Protein backbone atom coordinates (compact mmCIF):
# COMPACT_ATOMS: atom_id res chain seq x y z
CA UNK A 1 0.00 0.00 0.00
CA UNK A 2 1.31 3.43 -0.87
CA UNK A 3 2.27 5.70 1.97
CA UNK A 4 -0.17 8.31 0.68
CA UNK A 5 -3.08 5.85 0.70
CA UNK A 6 -2.12 4.67 4.16
CA UNK A 7 -1.89 8.26 5.37
CA UNK A 8 -5.25 9.18 3.87
CA UNK A 9 -6.97 6.13 5.30
CA UNK A 10 -5.70 6.87 8.79
CA UNK A 11 -6.73 10.49 8.38
CA UNK A 12 -10.22 9.46 7.25
CA UNK A 13 -10.62 7.07 10.15
CA UNK A 14 -9.51 9.65 12.71
CA UNK A 15 -11.67 12.33 11.08
CA UNK A 16 -14.67 9.98 11.23
CA UNK A 17 -14.20 9.31 14.95
CA UNK A 18 -13.41 12.94 15.87
CA UNK A 19 -16.24 14.33 13.81
CA UNK A 20 -18.84 11.84 15.03
CA UNK A 21 -17.93 12.42 18.69
CA UNK A 22 -17.65 16.16 18.10
CA UNK A 23 -20.89 16.18 16.16
CA UNK A 24 -22.68 14.38 18.96
CA UNK A 25 -21.42 16.86 21.56
CA UNK A 26 -22.30 19.75 19.30
CA UNK A 27 -25.78 18.35 18.76
CA UNK A 28 -26.34 17.76 22.46
CA UNK A 29 -25.21 21.23 23.37
CA UNK A 30 -27.29 22.85 20.68
CA UNK A 31 -30.33 20.93 21.86
CA UNK A 32 -29.66 21.99 25.41
CA UNK A 33 -29.45 25.65 24.46
CA UNK A 34 -32.68 25.41 22.48
CA UNK A 35 -34.38 23.77 25.44
CA UNK A 36 -33.22 26.48 27.78
CA UNK A 37 -34.40 29.10 25.32
CA UNK A 38 -37.87 27.48 25.24
CA UNK A 39 -38.02 27.35 29.02
CA UNK A 40 -37.00 30.99 29.29
CA UNK A 41 -39.65 31.89 26.75
CA UNK A 42 -42.28 30.01 28.81
CA UNK A 43 -41.35 31.88 32.02
CA UNK A 44 -41.48 35.17 30.17
CA UNK A 45 -44.97 34.25 28.99
CA UNK A 46 -45.94 33.37 32.56
CA UNK A 47 -44.90 36.81 33.76
CA UNK A 48 -46.80 38.35 30.89
CA UNK A 49 -49.95 36.39 31.84
CA UNK A 50 -49.67 37.37 35.54
CA UNK A 51 -49.09 40.96 34.52
CA UNK A 52 -52.10 40.88 32.26
CA UNK A 53 -54.31 39.44 34.99
CA UNK A 54 -53.24 42.02 37.60
CA UNK A 55 -53.67 44.87 35.15
CA UNK A 56 -56.86 43.90 33.39
CA UNK A 57 -58.57 41.91 36.13
CA UNK A 58 -59.59 39.23 33.71
CA UNK A 59 -58.03 36.08 32.24
CA UNK A 60 -56.47 36.45 28.89
CA UNK A 61 -58.11 34.56 26.04
CA UNK A 62 -56.85 31.09 25.40
CA UNK A 63 -54.65 30.75 22.35
CA UNK A 64 -54.54 27.51 20.53
CA UNK A 65 -51.74 28.14 18.03
CA UNK A 66 -48.04 28.56 18.41
CA UNK A 67 -47.93 29.34 22.09
CA UNK A 68 -50.88 27.61 23.50
CA UNK A 69 -52.46 29.12 26.56
CA UNK A 70 -55.29 27.52 28.53
CA UNK A 71 -56.90 27.93 31.90
CA UNK A 72 -58.70 25.47 34.05
CA UNK A 73 -60.27 25.93 37.43
CA UNK A 74 -58.88 23.76 40.16
CA UNK A 75 -59.73 23.14 43.80
CA UNK A 76 -56.26 23.30 45.16
CA UNK A 77 -53.32 25.27 43.91
CA UNK A 78 -50.87 23.12 41.95
CA UNK A 79 -47.12 23.18 42.11
CA UNK A 80 -45.40 24.78 39.22
CA UNK A 81 -44.08 22.15 36.82
CA UNK A 82 -42.30 21.98 33.56
CA UNK A 83 -42.73 19.09 31.15
CA UNK A 84 -42.18 17.85 27.60
CA UNK A 85 -45.34 16.83 25.84
CA UNK A 86 -46.36 15.42 22.53
CA UNK A 87 -49.49 17.17 21.41
CA UNK A 88 -51.61 16.06 18.54
CA UNK A 89 -51.99 18.81 15.99
CA UNK A 90 -54.85 18.29 13.60
CA UNK A 91 -53.47 20.35 10.74
CA UNK A 92 -50.20 18.47 10.80
CA UNK A 93 -52.00 15.18 11.54
CA UNK A 94 -49.26 14.12 13.89
CA UNK A 95 -47.97 14.56 17.39
CA UNK A 96 -45.41 17.30 17.74
CA UNK A 97 -43.02 18.00 20.60
CA UNK A 98 -43.98 20.80 22.96
CA UNK A 99 -42.54 22.23 26.11
CA UNK A 100 -45.24 22.89 28.72
CA UNK A 101 -45.34 25.04 31.85
CA UNK A 102 -48.17 24.57 34.34
CA UNK A 103 -48.58 27.02 37.17
CA UNK A 104 -51.20 28.24 39.60
CA UNK A 105 -52.93 31.54 38.97
CA UNK A 106 -55.03 33.15 41.70
CA UNK A 107 -57.86 35.13 40.19
CA UNK A 108 -60.81 36.51 41.99
CA UNK A 109 -60.18 34.15 44.90
CA UNK A 110 -60.20 31.09 42.66
CA UNK A 111 -57.37 28.81 41.71
CA UNK A 112 -56.69 28.37 38.08
CA UNK A 113 -54.23 26.03 36.52
CA UNK A 114 -52.62 27.90 33.72
CA UNK A 115 -50.84 25.88 31.02
CA UNK A 116 -48.52 27.50 28.53
CA UNK A 117 -47.01 25.39 25.73
CA UNK A 118 -44.45 26.28 23.20
CA UNK A 119 -43.58 24.23 20.12
CA UNK A 120 -40.11 22.73 19.94
CA UNK A 121 -40.51 22.04 16.26
CA UNK A 122 -38.74 25.20 15.20
CA UNK A 123 -35.87 24.50 17.51
CA UNK A 124 -35.57 20.99 16.09
CA UNK A 125 -35.60 22.41 12.59
CA UNK A 126 -32.88 24.81 13.52
CA UNK A 127 -30.76 22.11 15.04
CA UNK A 128 -31.21 19.97 11.96
CA UNK A 129 -30.22 22.81 9.65
CA UNK A 130 -27.20 23.74 11.69
CA UNK A 131 -26.18 20.14 12.03
CA UNK A 132 -26.45 19.34 8.33
CA UNK A 133 -24.49 22.46 7.36
CA UNK A 134 -21.90 21.40 9.86
CA UNK A 135 -21.74 17.95 8.26
CA UNK A 136 -21.37 19.42 4.77
CA UNK A 137 -18.52 21.63 5.95
CA UNK A 138 -16.78 18.61 7.47
CA UNK A 139 -17.14 16.53 4.32
CA UNK A 140 -15.85 19.41 2.22
CA UNK A 141 -12.95 19.90 4.59
CA UNK A 142 -11.93 16.26 4.37
CA UNK A 143 -12.29 16.27 0.59
CA UNK A 144 -10.18 19.38 0.25
CA UNK A 145 -7.63 17.98 2.66
CA UNK A 146 -7.30 14.72 0.76
CA UNK A 147 -7.05 16.49 -2.58
CA UNK A 148 -4.36 18.81 -1.28
CA UNK A 149 -2.58 15.84 0.22
CA UNK A 150 -2.61 14.03 -3.11
CA UNK A 151 -1.57 17.06 -5.08
CA UNK A 152 1.19 18.21 -2.80
CA UNK A 153 2.54 14.80 -1.93
CA UNK A 154 3.95 14.60 -5.48
CA UNK A 155 5.88 17.78 -4.85
CA UNK A 156 6.88 16.93 -1.31
CA UNK A 157 7.99 13.37 -2.15
CA UNK A 158 9.78 14.32 -5.34
CA UNK A 159 13.29 14.34 -3.79
CA UNK A 160 12.54 10.97 -2.22
CA UNK A 161 11.68 9.38 -5.56
CA UNK A 162 14.69 11.02 -7.14
CA UNK A 163 16.90 9.45 -4.48
CA UNK A 164 15.16 6.12 -5.00
CA UNK A 165 15.84 6.24 -8.72
CA UNK A 166 19.49 7.06 -8.11
CA UNK A 167 19.81 4.10 -5.76
CA UNK A 168 18.19 1.84 -8.32
CA UNK A 169 20.50 3.08 -11.04
CA UNK A 170 23.56 2.75 -8.83
CA UNK A 171 26.00 0.21 -10.17
CA UNK A 172 28.93 -0.60 -7.95
CA UNK A 173 30.86 -1.85 -10.97
CA UNK A 174 30.91 1.59 -12.53
CA UNK A 175 33.01 2.92 -9.64
CA UNK A 176 31.02 6.11 -9.50
CA UNK A 177 30.36 7.94 -6.27
CA UNK A 178 26.67 8.42 -5.64
CA UNK A 179 25.95 12.15 -5.55
CA UNK A 180 22.55 13.22 -4.31
CA UNK A 181 21.38 16.83 -4.45
CA UNK A 182 20.69 18.37 -1.08
CA UNK A 183 17.13 19.40 -0.40
CA UNK A 184 15.14 21.38 2.11
CA UNK A 185 13.34 18.48 3.79
CA UNK A 186 15.36 17.48 6.83
CA UNK A 187 14.37 13.81 6.79
CA UNK A 188 15.25 13.39 3.12
CA UNK A 189 18.49 15.21 3.69
CA UNK A 190 19.32 12.72 6.46
CA UNK A 191 18.34 9.81 4.24
CA UNK A 192 20.53 11.07 1.42
CA UNK A 193 23.49 11.57 3.69
CA UNK A 194 23.08 8.05 5.09
CA UNK A 195 22.85 6.59 1.60
CA UNK A 196 25.90 8.41 0.32
CA UNK A 197 27.86 7.26 3.35
CA UNK A 198 26.65 3.69 2.93
CA UNK A 199 27.44 3.48 -0.80
CA UNK A 200 30.88 4.87 -0.18
CA UNK A 201 31.50 2.15 2.38
CA UNK A 202 30.11 -0.55 0.12
CA UNK A 203 32.20 0.69 -2.75
CA UNK A 204 35.34 0.73 -0.61
CA UNK A 205 34.70 -2.76 0.75
CA UNK A 206 33.91 -4.05 -2.71
CA UNK A 207 37.11 -2.65 -4.15
CA UNK A 208 39.18 -3.94 -1.25
CA UNK A 209 37.76 -7.41 -1.58
CA UNK A 210 38.17 -7.39 -5.32
CA UNK A 211 41.77 -6.29 -5.22
CA UNK A 212 42.45 -8.78 -2.43
CA UNK A 213 41.06 -11.66 -4.50
CA UNK A 214 42.97 -10.54 -7.55
CA UNK A 215 46.20 -9.94 -5.71
CA UNK A 216 45.96 -13.27 -3.88
CA UNK A 217 45.42 -15.05 -7.18
CA UNK A 218 48.27 -13.24 -8.84
CA UNK A 219 50.61 -13.78 -5.94
CA UNK A 220 49.98 -17.51 -6.30
CA UNK A 221 51.17 -17.49 -9.90
CA UNK A 222 54.78 -16.57 -9.02
CA UNK A 223 55.47 -19.55 -6.68
CA UNK A 224 53.77 -21.76 -9.25
CA UNK A 225 56.09 -20.36 -11.90
CA UNK A 226 59.05 -21.18 -9.67
CA UNK A 227 57.86 -24.78 -9.20
CA UNK A 228 57.37 -25.21 -12.91
CA UNK A 229 60.72 -23.73 -13.85
CA UNK A 230 62.63 -25.68 -11.23
CA UNK A 231 61.10 -28.97 -12.40
CA UNK A 232 61.96 -28.01 -15.96
CA UNK A 233 65.59 -27.46 -14.98
CA UNK A 234 65.56 -30.70 -13.01
CA UNK A 235 64.28 -32.55 -16.05
CA UNK A 236 67.43 -31.62 -17.99
CA UNK A 237 69.61 -33.45 -15.47
CA UNK A 238 71.65 -36.27 -16.99
CA UNK A 239 70.93 -39.79 -15.88
CA UNK A 240 67.42 -39.44 -14.52
CA UNK A 241 65.62 -42.72 -14.06
CA UNK A 242 62.23 -43.18 -15.73
CA UNK A 243 60.54 -43.14 -12.35
CA UNK A 244 62.24 -39.88 -11.34
CA UNK A 245 61.36 -38.26 -14.65
CA UNK A 246 57.76 -39.35 -14.25
CA UNK A 247 57.56 -37.83 -10.78
CA UNK A 248 59.07 -34.56 -11.95
CA UNK A 249 56.66 -34.33 -14.86
CA UNK A 250 53.76 -34.98 -12.51
CA UNK A 251 54.87 -32.17 -10.23
CA UNK A 252 55.12 -29.91 -13.23
CA UNK A 253 51.68 -30.86 -14.50
CA UNK A 254 50.10 -30.48 -11.08
CA UNK A 255 51.55 -26.98 -10.82
CA UNK A 256 50.01 -26.21 -14.22
CA UNK A 257 46.69 -27.55 -13.06
CA UNK A 258 46.80 -25.48 -9.90
CA UNK A 259 47.61 -22.41 -11.93
CA UNK A 260 44.76 -23.13 -14.32
CA UNK A 261 42.36 -23.63 -11.43
CA UNK A 262 43.49 -20.39 -9.88
CA UNK A 263 43.04 -18.51 -13.14
CA UNK A 264 39.59 -19.95 -13.71
CA UNK A 265 38.48 -19.02 -10.19
CA UNK A 266 39.83 -15.52 -10.69
CA UNK A 267 37.97 -15.32 -13.97
CA UNK A 268 34.76 -16.52 -12.38
CA UNK A 269 34.97 -13.93 -9.65
CA UNK A 270 35.65 -11.29 -12.28
CA UNK A 271 32.59 -12.44 -14.21
CA UNK A 272 30.53 -12.38 -11.03
CA UNK A 273 31.71 -8.85 -10.38
CA UNK A 274 30.50 -7.91 -13.85
CA UNK A 275 33.94 -6.97 -15.01
CA UNK A 276 33.05 -8.29 -18.43
CA UNK A 277 29.83 -6.37 -18.86
CA UNK A 278 30.91 -4.50 -22.00
CA UNK A 279 29.68 -6.25 -25.10
CA UNK A 280 30.29 -5.82 -28.79
CA UNK A 281 28.66 -7.24 -31.89
CA UNK A 282 30.37 -10.52 -32.65
CA UNK A 283 30.06 -12.85 -35.56
CA UNK A 284 29.34 -16.02 -33.64
CA UNK A 285 29.67 -18.19 -36.73
CA UNK A 286 33.24 -16.98 -37.08
CA UNK A 287 33.98 -17.81 -33.45
CA UNK A 288 32.69 -21.34 -33.87
CA UNK A 289 34.60 -21.97 -37.08
CA UNK A 290 37.80 -20.59 -35.57
CA UNK A 291 37.39 -22.83 -32.53
CA UNK A 292 36.83 -25.87 -34.71
CA UNK A 293 40.04 -25.00 -36.55
CA UNK A 294 41.86 -24.65 -33.25
CA UNK A 295 40.66 -28.06 -32.08
CA UNK A 296 41.36 -29.63 -35.48
CA UNK A 297 44.21 -31.75 -34.20
CA UNK A 298 42.20 -33.21 -31.35
CA UNK A 299 39.29 -33.92 -33.66
CA UNK A 300 41.54 -35.60 -36.19
CA UNK A 301 43.33 -37.64 -33.56
CA UNK A 302 40.06 -39.06 -32.25
CA UNK A 303 38.78 -39.31 -35.83
CA UNK A 304 35.62 -37.48 -34.87
CA UNK A 305 33.00 -36.54 -37.42
CA UNK A 306 31.71 -33.00 -37.07
CA UNK A 307 28.28 -32.38 -38.54
CA UNK A 308 27.62 -28.68 -38.43
CA UNK A 309 24.83 -26.50 -39.64
CA UNK A 310 25.81 -22.93 -38.94
CA UNK A 311 23.69 -19.95 -39.87
CA UNK A 312 25.36 -16.57 -40.04
CA UNK A 313 24.62 -15.17 -36.60
CA UNK A 314 25.71 -11.96 -34.92
CA UNK A 315 25.36 -11.50 -31.17
CA UNK A 316 26.22 -8.86 -28.61
CA UNK A 317 28.77 -10.49 -26.38
CA UNK A 318 32.05 -9.89 -24.63
CA UNK A 319 34.63 -11.47 -26.96
CA UNK A 320 36.53 -13.27 -24.19
CA UNK A 321 33.36 -14.73 -22.71
CA UNK A 322 32.01 -15.81 -26.09
CA UNK A 323 35.28 -17.56 -26.80
CA UNK A 324 35.16 -19.19 -23.40
CA UNK A 325 31.73 -20.76 -23.71
CA UNK A 326 32.43 -22.11 -27.18
CA UNK A 327 35.80 -23.42 -26.05
CA UNK A 328 34.38 -25.12 -22.96
CA UNK A 329 31.37 -26.71 -24.62
CA UNK A 330 33.32 -27.85 -27.66
CA UNK A 331 36.26 -29.29 -25.76
CA UNK A 332 33.81 -30.98 -23.44
CA UNK A 333 32.10 -32.66 -26.39
CA UNK A 334 35.43 -33.70 -27.90
CA UNK A 335 36.62 -35.09 -24.61
CA UNK A 336 33.54 -37.21 -23.94
CA UNK A 337 32.96 -38.55 -27.43
CA UNK A 338 34.38 -41.97 -28.13
CA UNK A 339 36.80 -42.37 -31.03
CA UNK A 340 35.21 -42.17 -34.46
CA UNK A 341 32.13 -40.67 -32.85
CA UNK A 342 30.00 -37.81 -34.03
CA UNK A 343 29.57 -34.27 -32.81
CA UNK A 344 26.64 -32.22 -34.06
CA UNK A 345 26.81 -28.45 -34.09
CA UNK A 346 23.90 -26.21 -34.84
CA UNK A 347 23.86 -22.40 -34.78
CA UNK A 348 20.71 -20.33 -35.23
CA UNK A 349 19.90 -16.76 -34.16
CA UNK A 350 18.22 -18.28 -31.09
CA UNK A 351 21.31 -20.04 -29.82
CA UNK A 352 23.67 -22.87 -30.49
CA UNK A 353 23.39 -26.53 -29.84
CA UNK A 354 26.15 -29.07 -29.48
CA UNK A 355 25.47 -32.77 -29.09
CA UNK A 356 27.55 -35.87 -28.88
CA UNK A 357 26.94 -39.55 -28.32
CA UNK A 358 27.87 -40.95 -24.97
CA UNK A 359 26.90 -42.87 -21.88
CA UNK A 360 24.32 -41.38 -19.52
CA UNK A 361 25.61 -39.27 -16.64
CA UNK A 362 26.20 -40.93 -13.31
CA UNK A 363 24.83 -37.96 -11.44
CA UNK A 364 21.81 -35.88 -12.26
CA UNK A 365 21.86 -33.20 -14.92
CA UNK A 366 21.36 -30.50 -12.30
CA UNK A 367 24.78 -31.28 -10.79
CA UNK A 368 26.50 -30.84 -14.09
CA UNK A 369 26.76 -27.06 -13.82
CA UNK A 370 27.92 -26.92 -10.20
CA UNK A 371 31.45 -25.88 -9.36
CA UNK A 372 34.01 -28.63 -8.91
CA UNK A 373 31.63 -31.30 -10.09
CA UNK A 374 33.47 -33.96 -12.03
CA UNK A 375 31.81 -36.75 -13.90
CA UNK A 376 35.02 -38.74 -13.87
CA UNK A 377 37.94 -38.74 -11.52
CA UNK A 378 39.97 -36.91 -14.08
CA UNK A 379 43.17 -35.25 -13.02
CA UNK A 380 43.28 -32.87 -15.95
CA UNK A 381 39.82 -31.45 -15.37
CA UNK A 382 39.24 -28.48 -13.08
CA UNK A 383 35.53 -29.20 -12.76
CA UNK A 384 34.87 -25.55 -13.45
CA UNK A 385 34.24 -25.48 -17.19
CA UNK A 386 30.47 -25.92 -17.18
CA UNK A 387 30.04 -23.81 -14.06
CA UNK A 388 31.83 -21.07 -15.97
CA UNK A 389 29.48 -21.48 -18.94
CA UNK A 390 26.49 -21.25 -16.61
CA UNK A 391 27.94 -18.16 -14.94
CA UNK A 392 28.46 -16.45 -18.28
CA UNK A 393 24.90 -17.31 -19.29
CA UNK A 394 23.50 -15.82 -16.08
CA UNK A 395 25.30 -12.49 -16.27
CA UNK A 396 24.38 -12.08 -19.94
CA UNK A 397 20.74 -12.99 -19.22
CA UNK A 398 21.17 -16.01 -21.46
CA UNK A 399 20.30 -19.62 -20.73
CA UNK A 400 22.12 -22.91 -20.97
CA UNK A 401 20.41 -26.26 -21.03
CA UNK A 402 21.45 -29.87 -20.91
CA UNK A 403 19.46 -32.91 -21.97
CA UNK A 404 20.16 -36.56 -22.56
CA UNK A 405 18.11 -38.16 -25.30
CA UNK A 406 18.69 -41.33 -27.34
CA UNK A 407 22.11 -41.79 -25.72
CA UNK A 408 23.14 -38.34 -26.86
CA UNK A 409 24.26 -35.45 -24.66
CA UNK A 410 22.99 -32.09 -25.86
CA UNK A 411 24.00 -28.69 -24.56
CA UNK A 412 22.00 -25.75 -25.83
CA UNK A 413 23.11 -22.22 -25.25
CA UNK A 414 20.34 -19.70 -25.83
CA UNK A 415 21.06 -16.04 -26.55
CA UNK A 416 18.05 -15.11 -24.41
CA UNK A 417 16.59 -16.26 -21.11
Amino acid at each position, binding site marked *: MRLLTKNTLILLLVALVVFSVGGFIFYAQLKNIMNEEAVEALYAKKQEVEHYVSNNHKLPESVSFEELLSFAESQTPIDERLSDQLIYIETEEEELPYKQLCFNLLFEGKNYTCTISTSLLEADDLIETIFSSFAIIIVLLIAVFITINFLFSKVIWKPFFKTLKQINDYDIEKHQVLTIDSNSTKEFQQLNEAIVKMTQKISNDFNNLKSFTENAS*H*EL*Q*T*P*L*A*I*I*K*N*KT*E*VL*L*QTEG*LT*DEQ*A*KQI*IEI*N*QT*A*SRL*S*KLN*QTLLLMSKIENNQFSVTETLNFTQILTNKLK*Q*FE*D*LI*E*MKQLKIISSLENVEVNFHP*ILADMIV*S*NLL*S*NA*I*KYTAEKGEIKLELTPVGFKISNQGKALKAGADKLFTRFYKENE*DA*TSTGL*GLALVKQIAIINKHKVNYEYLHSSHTFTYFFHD
Partner: protein
Amino acid sequence: MKILLVEDETGLSDSISSYLKQEGYLCEVVKDYKSADEKIELYQYDCILVDINLPDGNGLNLVKSLKRLKAQAGIIIISARNAVDDKIEGLDLGADDYLSKPFSLAELNSRIKSVLRRRKFEGNNEILFNEITLKPAESTVYVKGVVLNLTKKEYDLILFLINNKNRVLTKETIAEHLWGDDMDMADSYDFIYTHIKNLRKKLMDKGCEDYVKTVYGMGYKFSAE
Protein backbone atom coordinates in the same frame (compact mmCIF):
# COMPACT_ATOMS: atom_id res chain seq x y z
CA MET B 1 74.14 -11.35 -26.35
CA LYS B 2 73.40 -9.41 -23.20
CA ILE B 3 70.18 -9.87 -21.34
CA LEU B 4 68.87 -7.90 -18.36
CA LEU B 5 66.42 -9.72 -16.14
CA VAL B 6 64.32 -7.57 -13.79
CA GLU B 7 62.66 -9.94 -11.34
CA ASP B 8 62.33 -9.68 -7.55
CA GLU B 9 61.67 -13.38 -6.91
CA THR B 10 65.03 -15.05 -6.40
CA GLY B 11 63.63 -18.52 -7.03
CA LEU B 12 62.45 -17.46 -10.43
CA SER B 13 65.40 -15.30 -11.45
CA ASP B 14 67.87 -18.08 -10.51
CA SER B 15 66.24 -20.61 -12.81
CA ILE B 16 65.85 -18.15 -15.63
CA SER B 17 69.40 -16.82 -15.48
CA SER B 18 70.99 -20.26 -15.24
CA TYR B 19 68.89 -21.46 -18.19
CA LEU B 20 69.85 -18.43 -20.24
CA LYS B 21 73.55 -18.79 -19.34
CA GLN B 22 73.43 -22.34 -20.62
CA GLU B 23 72.06 -20.94 -23.85
CA GLY B 24 75.17 -18.81 -24.08
CA TYR B 25 73.68 -15.46 -23.07
CA LEU B 26 75.23 -13.00 -20.70
CA CYS B 27 72.53 -12.54 -18.12
CA GLU B 28 72.39 -9.79 -15.53
CA VAL B 29 69.79 -9.92 -12.79
CA VAL B 30 68.37 -6.95 -10.83
CA LYS B 31 65.74 -7.22 -8.16
CA ASP B 32 64.12 -3.83 -8.12
CA TYR B 33 62.89 -0.98 -10.24
CA LYS B 34 65.50 1.52 -9.11
CA SER B 35 68.55 -0.58 -10.00
CA ALA B 36 66.91 -1.62 -13.27
CA ASP B 37 66.35 2.03 -14.16
CA GLU B 38 70.01 2.80 -13.41
CA LYS B 39 71.21 -0.16 -15.48
CA ILE B 40 69.26 0.75 -18.56
CA GLU B 41 70.55 4.32 -18.36
CA LEU B 42 74.16 3.14 -18.24
CA TYR B 43 74.39 0.01 -20.37
CA GLN B 44 73.14 -1.40 -23.61
CA TYR B 45 71.29 -4.72 -23.63
CA ASP B 46 70.03 -6.89 -26.43
CA CYS B 47 66.98 -8.02 -24.57
CA ILE B 48 65.30 -7.01 -21.34
CA LEU B 49 62.93 -9.21 -19.38
CA VAL B 50 60.73 -7.14 -17.07
CA ASP B 51 58.41 -8.29 -14.33
CA ILE B 52 55.50 -5.84 -13.97
CA ASN B 53 55.07 -6.14 -10.21
CA LEU B 54 58.27 -4.91 -8.62
CA PRO B 55 58.58 -4.01 -4.95
CA ASP B 56 59.36 -0.38 -5.68
CA GLY B 57 57.59 0.31 -8.91
CA ASN B 58 55.69 -0.77 -11.97
CA GLY B 59 57.71 -2.58 -14.63
CA LEU B 60 55.68 -0.88 -17.31
CA ASN B 61 57.47 2.36 -16.44
CA LEU B 62 60.75 0.69 -17.38
CA VAL B 63 59.28 0.04 -20.81
CA LYS B 64 58.46 3.75 -21.00
CA SER B 65 62.02 4.68 -19.95
CA LEU B 66 63.49 2.34 -22.56
CA LYS B 67 61.36 3.92 -25.25
CA ARG B 68 62.36 7.39 -24.04
CA LEU B 69 66.04 6.37 -24.26
CA LYS B 70 65.36 4.97 -27.74
CA ALA B 71 67.05 1.76 -26.58
CA GLN B 72 67.52 -0.93 -29.20
CA ALA B 73 66.82 -3.72 -26.71
CA GLY B 74 63.98 -6.14 -27.23
CA ILE B 75 61.50 -6.08 -24.36
CA ILE B 76 59.60 -9.04 -22.98
CA ILE B 77 57.16 -8.43 -20.15
CA ILE B 78 56.75 -11.11 -17.51
CA SER B 79 53.64 -10.79 -15.39
CA ALA B 80 51.66 -12.68 -12.83
CA ARG B 81 48.59 -11.11 -14.39
CA ASN B 82 47.20 -12.64 -17.49
CA ALA B 83 44.73 -9.80 -17.57
CA VAL B 84 44.03 -8.71 -21.08
CA ASP B 85 44.37 -5.06 -20.17
CA ASP B 86 47.90 -5.46 -18.84
CA LYS B 87 48.89 -7.24 -21.99
CA ILE B 88 47.52 -4.60 -24.26
CA GLU B 89 49.03 -1.77 -22.22
CA GLY B 90 52.47 -3.38 -22.23
CA LEU B 91 52.42 -4.01 -25.96
CA ASP B 92 51.05 -0.54 -26.62
CA LEU B 93 53.96 0.94 -24.74
CA GLY B 94 56.29 -0.81 -27.13
CA ALA B 95 57.10 -4.15 -25.52
CA ASP B 96 57.82 -6.90 -28.02
CA ASP B 97 56.17 -9.75 -26.20
CA TYR B 98 54.31 -10.71 -23.10
CA LEU B 99 54.52 -13.87 -21.01
CA SER B 100 52.23 -14.60 -18.11
CA LYS B 101 53.36 -16.67 -15.14
CA PRO B 102 53.73 -19.57 -14.93
CA PHE B 103 55.63 -20.10 -18.18
CA SER B 104 58.10 -22.72 -19.26
CA LEU B 105 61.76 -21.79 -19.67
CA ALA B 106 61.73 -23.33 -23.14
CA GLU B 107 58.89 -21.00 -24.08
CA LEU B 108 60.76 -17.99 -22.69
CA ASN B 109 63.90 -19.03 -24.55
CA SER B 110 62.00 -19.38 -27.79
CA ARG B 111 60.38 -15.95 -27.34
CA ILE B 112 63.74 -14.30 -26.57
CA LYS B 113 65.22 -15.83 -29.71
CA SER B 114 62.46 -14.61 -31.93
CA VAL B 115 62.57 -11.12 -30.40
CA LEU B 116 66.33 -10.98 -30.91
CA ARG B 117 65.98 -12.15 -34.49
CA ARG B 118 63.40 -9.48 -35.23
CA ARG B 119 65.39 -6.76 -33.48
CA LYS B 120 68.94 -7.65 -34.42
CA PHE B 121 68.64 -9.07 -37.87
CA GLU B 122 65.27 -7.70 -38.85
CA GLY B 123 64.35 -11.32 -39.38
CA ASN B 124 66.94 -11.78 -42.11
CA ASN B 125 69.08 -14.35 -40.43
CA GLU B 126 69.26 -18.08 -40.76
CA ILE B 127 69.18 -20.74 -38.12
CA LEU B 128 71.55 -23.57 -38.84
CA PHE B 129 71.52 -27.05 -37.42
CA ASN B 130 73.84 -29.38 -39.33
CA GLU B 131 72.18 -29.95 -42.70
CA ILE B 132 69.03 -28.07 -41.70
CA THR B 133 68.62 -24.36 -42.44
CA LEU B 134 65.66 -22.32 -41.13
CA LYS B 135 64.80 -18.98 -42.66
CA PRO B 136 62.39 -17.32 -40.22
CA ALA B 137 61.77 -14.38 -42.57
CA GLU B 138 60.10 -16.68 -45.09
CA SER B 139 59.03 -19.36 -42.63
CA THR B 140 60.76 -22.05 -44.65
CA VAL B 141 63.08 -24.91 -43.86
CA TYR B 142 65.80 -26.23 -46.14
CA VAL B 143 67.51 -29.59 -45.86
CA LYS B 144 70.81 -29.62 -47.75
CA GLY B 145 69.53 -26.64 -49.71
CA VAL B 146 66.25 -28.24 -50.71
CA VAL B 147 62.96 -26.77 -49.51
CA LEU B 148 61.08 -28.92 -47.07
CA ASN B 149 57.29 -28.77 -47.40
CA LEU B 150 55.92 -28.31 -43.90
CA THR B 151 52.55 -27.38 -42.55
CA LYS B 152 52.31 -24.28 -40.33
CA LYS B 153 52.22 -26.46 -37.21
CA GLU B 154 55.19 -28.54 -38.34
CA TYR B 155 57.19 -25.39 -39.05
CA ASP B 156 56.36 -23.98 -35.61
CA LEU B 157 57.28 -27.31 -34.10
CA ILE B 158 60.71 -27.58 -35.71
CA LEU B 159 61.48 -23.94 -34.87
CA PHE B 160 60.57 -24.56 -31.24
CA LEU B 161 62.60 -27.76 -31.12
CA ILE B 162 65.69 -26.17 -32.68
CA ASN B 163 65.39 -23.06 -30.48
CA ASN B 164 65.54 -25.43 -27.51
CA LYS B 165 67.93 -27.97 -28.97
CA ASN B 166 69.59 -30.50 -26.70
CA ARG B 167 66.89 -30.02 -24.08
CA VAL B 168 64.12 -32.30 -23.06
CA LEU B 169 60.77 -30.73 -23.89
CA THR B 170 57.67 -32.18 -22.28
CA LYS B 171 54.60 -32.78 -24.36
CA GLU B 172 52.81 -30.20 -22.29
CA THR B 173 55.37 -27.52 -23.08
CA ILE B 174 55.20 -28.30 -26.78
CA ALA B 175 51.39 -28.36 -26.76
CA GLU B 176 51.24 -25.06 -24.95
CA HIS B 177 53.61 -23.46 -27.40
CA LEU B 178 51.76 -24.71 -30.47
CA TRP B 179 48.14 -24.47 -29.38
CA GLY B 180 48.08 -22.06 -26.51
CA ASP B 181 46.01 -22.34 -23.38
CA ASP B 182 43.03 -24.02 -24.97
CA MET B 183 44.70 -27.36 -25.39
CA ASP B 184 45.02 -28.09 -21.71
CA MET B 185 41.44 -29.24 -22.02
CA ALA B 186 42.56 -32.25 -23.96
CA ASP B 187 42.89 -35.29 -21.75
CA SER B 188 46.24 -36.24 -23.18
CA TYR B 189 48.92 -34.64 -25.24
CA ASP B 190 49.04 -37.62 -27.58
CA PHE B 191 47.91 -35.54 -30.51
CA ILE B 192 51.41 -34.05 -30.57
CA TYR B 193 52.72 -37.43 -31.54
CA THR B 194 51.10 -37.19 -35.00
CA HIS B 195 52.90 -33.93 -35.70
CA ILE B 196 56.22 -35.24 -34.38
CA LYS B 197 55.87 -38.37 -36.48
CA ASN B 198 55.07 -36.40 -39.65
CA LEU B 199 57.92 -33.96 -39.10
CA ARG B 200 60.39 -36.76 -38.45
CA LYS B 201 59.29 -38.58 -41.58
CA LYS B 202 59.59 -35.47 -43.77
CA LEU B 203 63.06 -34.76 -42.43
CA MET B 204 64.31 -38.28 -42.95
CA ASP B 205 62.77 -38.47 -46.44
CA LYS B 206 65.07 -35.60 -47.40
CA GLY B 207 68.02 -37.55 -46.11
CA CYS B 208 68.21 -35.95 -42.72
CA GLU B 209 69.42 -37.74 -39.67
CA ASP B 210 66.84 -38.57 -37.04
CA TYR B 211 67.33 -35.60 -34.74
CA VAL B 212 63.95 -35.77 -33.02
CA LYS B 213 64.62 -38.06 -30.11
CA THR B 214 61.89 -39.52 -27.98
CA VAL B 215 62.85 -39.38 -24.31
CA TYR B 216 60.87 -42.13 -22.78
CA GLY B 217 58.23 -41.00 -20.29
CA MET B 218 59.32 -37.39 -20.58
CA GLY B 219 58.93 -35.93 -24.01
CA TYR B 220 61.12 -35.04 -26.96
CA LYS B 221 64.56 -33.69 -27.58
CA PHE B 222 66.09 -32.23 -30.72
CA SER B 223 69.67 -33.37 -30.71
CA ALA B 224 72.44 -34.56 -32.98
CA GLU B 225 73.87 -36.95 -30.42
